[in-house]
């Protein structure tokens, strides 16, 4: 049963990865990274049970923490580079 959940989480990660690549807006990318981070927390927790040594869950904590800090850092980055300029006027060139 852990297997099924692991596969579900992996599928979710792959979809989020695609969204991070495809964009189109930068907020989509931030959202995708956030979702990816949460799914990684779950994956670590489940893999711990799957491999029979679930006592190392501290790592999942760090993931949740870093996920939060990264999202805030990104938002702050856009406040700095004056959002009116960076968020609207430029268009994706790739």
């Amino acid at each position: 049963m852990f297997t099924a959940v692991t596969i579900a989480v992996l599928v979710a990660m792959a979809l989020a990865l695609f969204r991070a690549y495809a964009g189109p807006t930068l907020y989509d990318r931030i959202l995708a990274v956030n979702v990816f981070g949460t799914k990684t927390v779950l994956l670590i927790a489940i893999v711990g049970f799957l491999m029979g040594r679930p006592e190392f869950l501290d790592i999942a904590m760090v993931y949740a923490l870093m996920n939060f800090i990264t999202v805030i850092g990104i938002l702050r980055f856009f406040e700095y580079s004056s959002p009116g300029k960076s968020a609207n006027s430029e268009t994706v060139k790739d």
Partner: protein
Amino acid sequence: MESFVHVVIILMLVTTAIAIVRVKDLFAVTMLAGIYGLLSASFFVLMDAHDVAFTEAAVGAGISTLLVLTTLSMTGRFEKASVKPQADYRPVLALVLVTVTGALLIYGTQDMPGFGTADAPVQTHVVPRYLNDSATEIGIPNVVASILASYRGYDTFGEVVVIFTAGIGVLAMVMSNATKMPVVQTALMSDHVVLRIVSKMLIPLIMLFALYVQFHGEYGPGGGFQAGVIFASAFILYAMLFGLTAARNVVNHTLVQLLSALGVLLYGSVGVVAMINGGNFLDYNFLSDDPVAGQMLGILLVELGVGITVASVMIIIFFTFTARSQKEGEAD
């Protein structure tokens, strides 16, 4: 099942790396690099390297993303599309070089022992001794911590000095009288009330967690390196939400600089004390009458030194970068 997860994660790593090559928006590149960090950390968990995963999660996905973003805010977001004619053949040449090198390396892997074999040379040299004797010689369950701080204490000392030097280097490069600079932007993310309140609740939790990681490192994954990064991230979070000036009021710039040196000094002093007591440099057996107690004490102090240095260097690096980017913002 483990090998299935292994293959999927490895394939996702390759996909992310290729996506990084193709995307021109440097912001998106940074996001993908963050995902790459998360993925490699999950891979380390699968490979039983919990300590490494711990560090990579804090560093690769967290701090380095923030640093790159701060730099991007100074240098601009888009990679310039090259218009020169010489740019046409360059990717082809590079691709040929890369393919040839890769093919040679793959040819070289023919002699490598298969994945997961227990009798590979890596597993038979030195390591059995560490695994068998660590429990009686050092007396702590986490073998990674005992190798890091005791058996290979010299190495770690060197690494700590490298980190300290990098901190000095960053200061020398981009400091720009950052200490005296009047920072105007204090009410930075003032409209994010929810964010501020939740973060205020979280910051003490993060620090507590960092202390747990620091002092629990002998019994589970953790230790000075990880705890230092986590501890620094609490201050970074504070600085991001309440402005650099407020954060500087909490952790004085001079104090952090002193602390970063103090950590290295603490590490070195432990070694010197061991020498004074009649042993070799960093031979913790001589720190106490009972060798095992000496080892425990030595590892505790050394990890503390590592933690202090790593935390303060990370704070220094982040604060100097932020101060620089704010200065640039005002110049515009």
